[in-house]
């Protein structure tokens, strides 16, 4: 039995690479999606980082909704599974090897996307490949289980296409897979929590960019595991090796059983507020002592220079009443500005640094005093430990988190390239950090 399983597994992989249609659907289409996403999101910083989980999910979803059931149903139509049924104890290992081979093929397509995204757009490689692999396994299990159900429901290959689209399109459009969850209105975000796609995207993103807490990741993996269990059990139970087999009432109950976890997980998410899209990447808590110590303060631009100036502590003496009034207004606005009051201290610190950075790049007349105002606010508001971690995170990983290219609402005009804002924020972070750690005299 093991011999048969292994031989069929390897043979399925070999035959797949001899099938032009399978290659087009399995590899060309994922690359097409990569190029399409790259065209839309190449301006991201880093490019495509936050879309990679969506791309990978689309590839797995395509393999599950179309690749797997099309192969199974066409083989059934040709009588192949009827022939396999005559072999002793063969159906379960052959089905298992088919699923494993499909998982490997989809993994290959995902790997191709990762490498091409890096090569073409400079998208970073996954931050935690093992976590990504774990997430991928859960996503593949959940979606391929759905593929088994589609194969059981479809009487022929055209029916696979129709049923597959019924799954694929909603997940792509409002399930958080194709259209980013953050871009959806709240009602759609809430609705998306009733589809498995968003949990797949979040689980993969955790491995790709460290997004989400351990609790969120665990929840996503548990949800995917539940989907996989229900769909896999239904798909295996309803598996049709002969086209003449028909699904009776118990079969329809099994199909319903495969969808019940979607509703249960969605209801739980809605009840516990988990339906919100995850925020931007934040790995401040993961900054190690070694990383902190490796930050250099020696080649930073001078405080009285053109780049990233900081006014001296007694800067207020030389200010005109009008400038002083403007600066007071900015300080007041910063106190109530929502991004500066984000519950995540690292993100609120980044938002405040963005204000100094925008003033700097926009060559605001008060760029130095604004930076000093931000520095004073940071020192007054945050605990030393939070401040150290937040500033180190911004200095070490300028590309993470959310960068604000415009902060006009606090009284600092200008719209700046987000990349520039991130770069200047990183320099300010190092300058402020140097002061806290006693490496830069103020």
């Amino acid at each position, binding site marked *: 039995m093991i011999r048969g399983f292994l031989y069929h597994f390897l043979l399925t992989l070999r035959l797949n690479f001899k099938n032009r249609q399978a290659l087009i659907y399995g590899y060309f289409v994922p690359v097409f999606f990569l190029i399409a996403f790259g065209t839309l999101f190449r301006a991201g910083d880093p490019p495509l980082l936050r879309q990679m989980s969506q791309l990978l999910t689309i590839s797995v979803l395509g393999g599950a909704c179309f690749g797997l059931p099309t192969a199974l149903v066409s083989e059934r139509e040709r009588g192949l599974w009827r*022939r396999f049924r005559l072999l002793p104890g063969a159906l379960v290992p052959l089905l298992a090897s088919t699923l494993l081979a499909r998982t490997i093929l989809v993994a290959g397509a995902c790997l191709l996307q990762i490498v091409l995204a890096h090569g073409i757009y400079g998208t970073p490689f996954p931050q935690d490949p093992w976590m990504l692999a774990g997430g991928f396994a859960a996503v593949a299990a959940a979606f391929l289980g759905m593929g088994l159900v589609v194969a059981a429901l479809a009487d022929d290959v055209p029916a696979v296409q129709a049923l597959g689209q019924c799954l694929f399109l909603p997940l792509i459009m409002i399930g958080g897979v194709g259209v980013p969850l953050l871009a959806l209105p709240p009602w759609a975000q809430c609705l998306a929590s009733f589809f498995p796609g968003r949990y797949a995207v979040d689980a993969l993103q955790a491995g790709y960019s460290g997004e989400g807490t351990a609790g969120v990741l665990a929840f996503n993996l548990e949800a995917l595991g539940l989907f996989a269990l229900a769909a896999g059990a239904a798909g295996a139970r309803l598996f049709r090796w002969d086209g003449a087999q028909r699904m009776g009432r118990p079969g329809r109950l099994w199909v319903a059983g495969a969808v019940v976890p979607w509703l249960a997980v969605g209801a739980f998410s809605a009840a516990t507020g988990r339906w919100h899209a995850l925020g931007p990447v934040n790995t401040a808590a993961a900054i190690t002592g070694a990383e902190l110590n490796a930050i250099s303060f020696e080649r930073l631009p001078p405080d009285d220079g053109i780049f990233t100036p900081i006014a001296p502590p007694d800067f207020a003496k030389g200010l005109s009443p009008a400038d002083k009034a403007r600066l007071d207004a900015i300080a007041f606005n910063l106190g109530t500005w929502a991004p500066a009051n984000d519950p995540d201290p690292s993100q609120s610190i980044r938002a405040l640094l963005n204000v100094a950075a925008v003033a700097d790049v926009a060559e605001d007349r008060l760029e130095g005093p604004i930076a000093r105002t931000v520095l004073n606010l940071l020192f007054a508001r945050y605990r030393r430990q939070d401040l150290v971690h937040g500033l180190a995170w911004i200095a070490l990983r300028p590309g993470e988190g959310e960068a604000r290219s415009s902060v006009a609402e606090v009284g600092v005009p200008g719209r700046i390239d987000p990349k520039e804002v991130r770069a200047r924020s990183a320099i300010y972070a190092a300058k402020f950090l140097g002061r806290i750690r006693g490496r830069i005299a103020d």
Partner: protein
Amino acid sequence: MTPPPPAISVRGLRKRYGNAEVVSGVSFEVAPGEILGLIGPNGAGKTTTLECLLGLRQPDEGDIRVLGIDARARPDEVRQRIGAQLQVSALPDAMTPRQALRLCGAFYRSPVEPEELLRTFGLAERSDARFSSLSAGQARRLALALAFVNDPQVVVLDEPSAGLDPASRRDLHRLIAAQRSARRAVVFTTHYLEEARSLCDRIALLDRGRLLALGPPEELVAGSKVRPRLIVELRPPLARDSLAALAGVGRCDPEGAGWSLETDSLPGTLAGLAALAAASGTELAEVRLRRPTLDDVFFELTGRSRAEDEPA
């Protein structure tokens, strides 16, 4: 000493699809080395009977044993010992005969080497060809080779000669006949009655799910109520009435340029015919005897006419 169990034993087999009973209490046995042919018109229940035997269908009632093993209780044990060729079972386009044999063989305890099967079934030269490039005959031979991949003690073939050219059919007949010496029990379905007559030790005639007759072909023919016919051609021809009045003649039908005389007294009819010809100065241009055949038995027992269900 207990006699060895029959290779196949089917008792009271019943199978229903909805309200239609497609197999109604069929029973038969096949001994090791025996060849049994299942014949019958379309929809007779031949394929369903084989599918129940192979475990592809779950019977509603009945007992099926293969080599003494309960096929319903231990289907995988039976599958280890049984080889089968189905009517339709294509392989993936890119799969080669060697790969197919190796794949199927991997599930058996003692598989036959693919090379040996490829040689036996005349596929050695096409062993690494894509399935899609095989001719219909080669594909059929591969399906047959797959039936022998486990060196089975029982072979089940569903219409093995359908679609084969005469040469391939002759090879198939040789192969089936050779199973006697290998002590393999063979059950096959066919629409070719002549094939069944020449190959089978016994024939089971099915119609509408019921077993109408079971026995050696000669016995089935001998037991037929169909009477022999004399085919006669006279020059100049004689009137029908004079022929119909001959001793023993039941029916007189035109056939070709002459007449077909159904008789229950062959010597009496022949003697009368000779006397009639001499008396009327007519030449007996042709006299042939047509004994009842399996075809006659088939149409007699199924109650169908030749025009209604002419075998392919």
